[in-house]
């Protein structure tokens, strides 16, 4: 077939000899891309009488939507919460590196920090989230969807690795004013993690949700009722389930109980982040959560700056951490400070530990986070019209290549 028959200026690429993740299964189909989006080949054939300008042979590999990481604190020595002179350069550096893990979109995450840090970093981040080429990503790195602010409105008892001196409460005024004060603004913020048992949280949750910011419950000692109320106000995510919250109790399941709560408003779903590195959650607990509510599971790395670095001591936020193998502790304690597993490692571990199918494991890292953020018409899926952010992998889900908008941005 001659390749110069394109009916439009934009070249048409056809990925052949692949199995694509579609309709929750792996289908033996070709994938067509034009203008960075996935193209309907039937419409191309009949309406435009067009065909592909070039064909890419995938060698029988699996072609899936690129991974979306909604909780990433940094990596390769960069800590998003410790701004250097140019926080933007740090984000760009990490964004480029995580292409190797199959991540094509992410939410840079800031842990509890003083207002000065938020003001400085958020102002610089807006450069990324406002600019189309950085939002969609490309050869320069994964797309920056928006910032995830994990704290400072969290529980003292469940602060985990967050610095105690910067924790805050909402104060009496109601609404998002305390947040605007602390953060310096809510532009380009995708998600806020907060503890709903803090007084005054209801109006905050409601207003954030109305502004289109995803509200996540985490680092909290809330009981199930408090959590359910927050969901009714608009909360839709749980930050790293099981970690930094009350353990499941059969007479008050706490936040964990949201997975099977019958007080979730109709038409809405609660998603929950899982750090599937084999360390933050016992595989049996992972299975309990997965079996209770498989459609809500969102794989996150919660990776810290030490991800990609050699063992030893490093700085995270305003604290020092220590790496031993795949574990990262608050220096001098046994408190986990975050994970250093990469997203593709998490996907593989999740599949092995839960025994779920490959499509299910892949969707937990692509479709579910996209649904959580309300962008599943554009990301996290291979439906026609979606952005062509793709990962190519073998049957063991070991990555071979990453594509953004149909362009190869990394190859093994």
């Amino acid at each position, binding site marked *: *077939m001659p390749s110069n*028959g394109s009916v439009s200026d934009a070249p048409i690429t056809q990925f052949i000899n692949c199995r694509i993740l579609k309709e929750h299964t792996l289908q033996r189909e*070709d994938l067509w891309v034009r203008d960075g989006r996935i193209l309907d*080949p*039937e419409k*191309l*054939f*009949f309406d*435009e*009488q*067009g*065909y592909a300008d070039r064909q890419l042979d995938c060698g029988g590999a699996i072609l899936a939507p690129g991974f979306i990481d909604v909780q990433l604190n940094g990596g390769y020595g960069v800590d998003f919460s410790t701004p250097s002179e140019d926080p933007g350069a740090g984000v760009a550096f990490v964004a480029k590196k995580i292409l190797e893990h199959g991540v094509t979109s992410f939410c840079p995450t800031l842990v509890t920090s003083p207002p000065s840090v938020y003001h400085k970093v958020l102002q610089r981040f807006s450069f990324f989230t406002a600019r189309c080429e950085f939002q969609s990503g490309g050869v320069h790195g994964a797309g920056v969807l928006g910032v995830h602010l994990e704290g400072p409105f969290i529980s003292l008892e469940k602060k985990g690795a967050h610095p105690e001196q910067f924790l805050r409460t909402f104060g009496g005024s109601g609404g998002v004013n305390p947040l605007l004060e602390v953060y310096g603004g809510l532009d380009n913020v995708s998600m806020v993690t907060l503890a709903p048992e803090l007084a005054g949280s209801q109006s905050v949750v409601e207003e954030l949700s109305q502004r289109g910011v995803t509200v996540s419950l985490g680092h909290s000692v809330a009981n199930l009722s408090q959590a359910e109320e927050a969901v009714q106000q608009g909360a839709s995510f749980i930050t790293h389930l099981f970690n930094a919250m009350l353990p499941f109790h059969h007479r008050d399941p706490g936040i964990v109980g949201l997975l099977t709560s019958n007080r979730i408003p109709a038409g809405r779903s609660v998603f929950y982040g899982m750090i599937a590195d084999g360390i933050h959650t016992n595989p049996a607990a992972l299975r309990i959560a997965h079996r209770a509510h498989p459609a809500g599971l969102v794989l996150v790395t919660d990776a810290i700056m030490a991800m990609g670095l050699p063992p030893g001591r490093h700085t995270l936020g305003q604290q020092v951490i220590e790496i031993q193998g795949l574990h990262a502790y608050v220096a001098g304690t046994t408190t986990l400070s975050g994970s250093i597993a990469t997203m593709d490692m998490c996907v593989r571990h999740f599949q092995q530990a839960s025994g779920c199918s490959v499509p299910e494991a892949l969707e937990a890292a692509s479709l579910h986070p996209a649904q959580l953020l309300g962008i599943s018409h554009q990301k996290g899926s291979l439906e026609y019209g979606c952005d062509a952010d793709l990962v190519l992998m073998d049957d063991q889900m070991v990555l071979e290549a990453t594509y953004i908008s149909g362009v190869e941005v990394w190859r093994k």
Partner: protein
Amino acid sequence: MRLVILEDYDLASEWAAKYIRNRIITFRPTAQRYFTLGLPTGLPRAHPESYHSYMWNNFFKHVDIDPANAHILDGNAQDLEAECAVFEKDIADAGGIDLFVGGIGPDGHIAFNEPGSSLVSRTRVKTLAKDTIVANARFFGHDLSKVPTMALTVGVGTVMDSREVMIVITGAHKAFALYKAIEDGVNHMWTVSAFQQHPRTIFVCDEDATLELRVKTVKYFKGLMHVHNKLVDPVLTMKNDLS
């Protein structure tokens, strides 16, 4: 005619596919001289089960045909009569159909030429018979009210103009239609019977489809299988031939 009887659906399909392959290869098509394959039409475009979707998923997406060379009757065209006339003209411009491949309905129709269709009819709009609607219900969740009642179709005459015709018939529910088509007279109530007057027709069927035929007919044609099978022996590919 040739009557090729294979044991079951899969073997009949395979024989038919190999025959078509061989015909195309021995024809040696070039950019100046196309092999024109004719296929019967189907449902209106707009429906998800439309014939366009059917043809795309079952044929076009598996081969590298230039889309400009795929002509399908568009049931959603503004002027249906003009659409049919243009289709007939397209066939003529392409030099006529080299091989027409089709099946038959339980009522013996070819394409949507329902009982009573003129045996010299051309491409036109037809109202579907109840039998056909029932047969198509499987594409519409078995809801008869959802099945389209009209379709564009090539005419009996249009198919008769083809240089060769292959009819594939499988299943016991088609057996009576096959009997009417080849052992009874030419009759516009069983439009497939028109091909008794075509110089090159092949009927490919499975055992079940022969259940209403005379034993004598079946034995005669089964006895010719060694001749029929030569028609599907692998031939040189076009690539080898051109070197």
